């Protein structure tokens, strides 16, 4: 565990650096002095708006969404004993995506908080399906992954269909690789906090037993660990976190897949260490991916999902070859 704390320390430094990048770089150039004044809310009001209403919400959103996804991935992978576990891949964000599409098409006119709550509840439907299948004896990891992919593809199709019906932008091919942190106001970001809190609370309840789950259900039961209950709590937590993440940023894929593997290579195989490191690691990966998406081809932007896919897809192929 000591190594975990070292890694967390390093990540905190990276995060601070990332936040600075996020608020200082952009199409509008600010000098160091202007930046400092803007942070302190002094000087040019346009600079304040730039820093506090434009760049900061985006940075904070990336951090919070990243933590949600990293933890969700960690919980899914360990509780289903499946190295491909990822909230988007397993369809846990699917229900939320459908809600988002309904809202974007104007078919659901509701306030932000209601939208968030509905998104999380809808995601829990996908979570329930995965929990059901994961508890069945003799279901290979490959099959579970396929079930999850089917759920997520179904949800993406539904969401795409809803958007196509409402003709949101004339002639475009509606590809849902999306996910974006662009144009987020504080009111779009802050509602994630209570869900992050609930999700983390549930996660901590399950996290103590994650190591034991690896031994298989019969032995885990024999140790008194109630694997079915732990698994249910872990997957429910992933559903809450995954749903809240989609409600903010849409389908940002592969972060949940990537983070636990990265954490494992940094701190070893103790699930508790991996879990605790996933929180800042998910935040860091997503923050840097979003900054890359935003800045590399400035003033154009690449969808953040593209960057995470570039990082995560090769890993997915590697893991699938090795393990499945």
């Amino acid at each position, binding site marked *: 565990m000591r190594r975990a704390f070292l890694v967390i320390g390093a990540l905190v430094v990276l995060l601070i650096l990332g936040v600075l990048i996020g608020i200082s770089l*952009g199409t509008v150039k600010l000098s160091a002095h202007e930046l400092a004044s803007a942070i302190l809310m002094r000087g040019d009001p346009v600079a304040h*708006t730039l820093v506090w209403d434009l760049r900061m919400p985006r940075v904070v959103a990336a951090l919070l969404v990243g933590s949600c996804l990293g933890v969700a991935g960690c919980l899914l992978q360990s509780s289903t004993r499946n190295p491909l576990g990822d909230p988007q891949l397993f369809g846990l964000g699917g229900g939320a995506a459908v809600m988002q599409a309904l809202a974007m098409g104007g078919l659901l006119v509701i306030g932000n908080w209601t939208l968030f709550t509905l998104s999380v509840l809808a995601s829990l439907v996908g979570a329930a399906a995965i929990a059901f299948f994961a508890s069945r004896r003799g279901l290979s990891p490959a099959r579970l992954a396929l079930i999850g992919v089917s759920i997520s593809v179904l949800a993406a199709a539904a969401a795409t269909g809803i958007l196509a019906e409402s003709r949101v*932008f004339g002639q475009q091919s509606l590809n849902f690789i999306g996910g974006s942190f*662009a144009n987020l106001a504080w009111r779009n970001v802050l509602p994630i906090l209570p869900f992050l809190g609930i999700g983390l609370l549930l996660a901590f309840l399950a996290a103590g037993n994650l190591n034991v789950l690896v031994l298989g259900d019969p032995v885990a039961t024999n140790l008194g660990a109630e694997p079915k209950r732990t698994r249910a709590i872990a997957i429910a937590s992933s559903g809450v976190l995954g749903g809240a993440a989609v409600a903010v940023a849409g389908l940002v894929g592969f972060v949940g897949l990537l983070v636990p593997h990265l954490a494992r290579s940094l701190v070893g195989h103790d699930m508790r260490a991996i879990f605790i490191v996933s929180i800042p690691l998910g935040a860091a990966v997503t923050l840097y991916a979003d900054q890359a998406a935003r800045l590399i081809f400035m003033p154009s932007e690449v969808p953040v999902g593209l960057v995470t896919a570039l990082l995560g897809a090769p890993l997915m192929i590697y893991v699938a070859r090795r393990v499945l």
Partner: protein
Amino acid sequence: MKKAFTALLSLFVLSLLIVAACSSSPTIVPTATPSDGGYPIIVTDFLGRSVQITEKPVRIVTTHPTATETLYRVGGTAVGCDASSVYPPDVQALPKVGSAYTISTEAISALSPDLILIESLTQANLVSALEPLGVPVVALRAASLDDIANGLTLVGEIIDDNDAATQAIVDMQDRIEAARGNCTGNKTALILISDAQRNIYAAKPESYPGSVAALINLGNPAAGLPDTGPYPGFALFTGEQALTSNPDIVFTISPAPPPAPRLSAVLLQTPGFNQMPAVKAGRVVELDPMLFLQAEGPRIADAVEEMLRLVNEVSY
């Protein structure tokens, strides 16, 4: 295995680059053989294809608002059109052959057409799909004022009513000139549209709505921006860019029909955009998406007049 993977990856990236380089289309100028009213005639359409029309077409099917409106503007009529064509009002009662993105060749053939008018930029793939019908297919385009004029001429030639075509062109040009004459002062207008991912794009002068604005001498803060994002003529516009631009008036286009929210309302909540002086002062106007985006063609004159009216109505 690793080598194979790297080779495959490089090939993939290379093909992406090639596709990107080839996607610029050459400029085609259509021609029609000046005729003495007799058929057959040979015309060149906007895809550069030579098409032979053996006799005066009486059962014409159109697959795009540009085609529909150009045809009707020179006095022709159709026996079927796509679902997106809504002008002139007569066409709403016509049998439909699909939406502008998914045309049904079966529905077209059921109408036994003797001519099919399509759009060249988005429906070029229809040419091969319609070949089995053995019916002449002519592609039109309305990417510029010249295009529209040439399109009117072309269709006029095809249905043997050159006078109507000439008249239509003259009308159109007169109205545009009149509008330009009524322009007051140097105003700047930012035209915005949003996509499914909450990204907001600004129409550059090269786009259809941008060219309408250019015709009445409105300045465009998006001029000179690189073509970013998937839609040619539109540039991705971030909150930061909005924060530092100060157009006199903001036009918004919301292609999705109600109940989808209007972009003009969404802008009030979007950071950066809601700080523009024009937005704060309420100088945000919704444009009709059909007129200004989806039905490019002879109604450009209507669009010009409408935009001028809106510009003049707002108090600065």
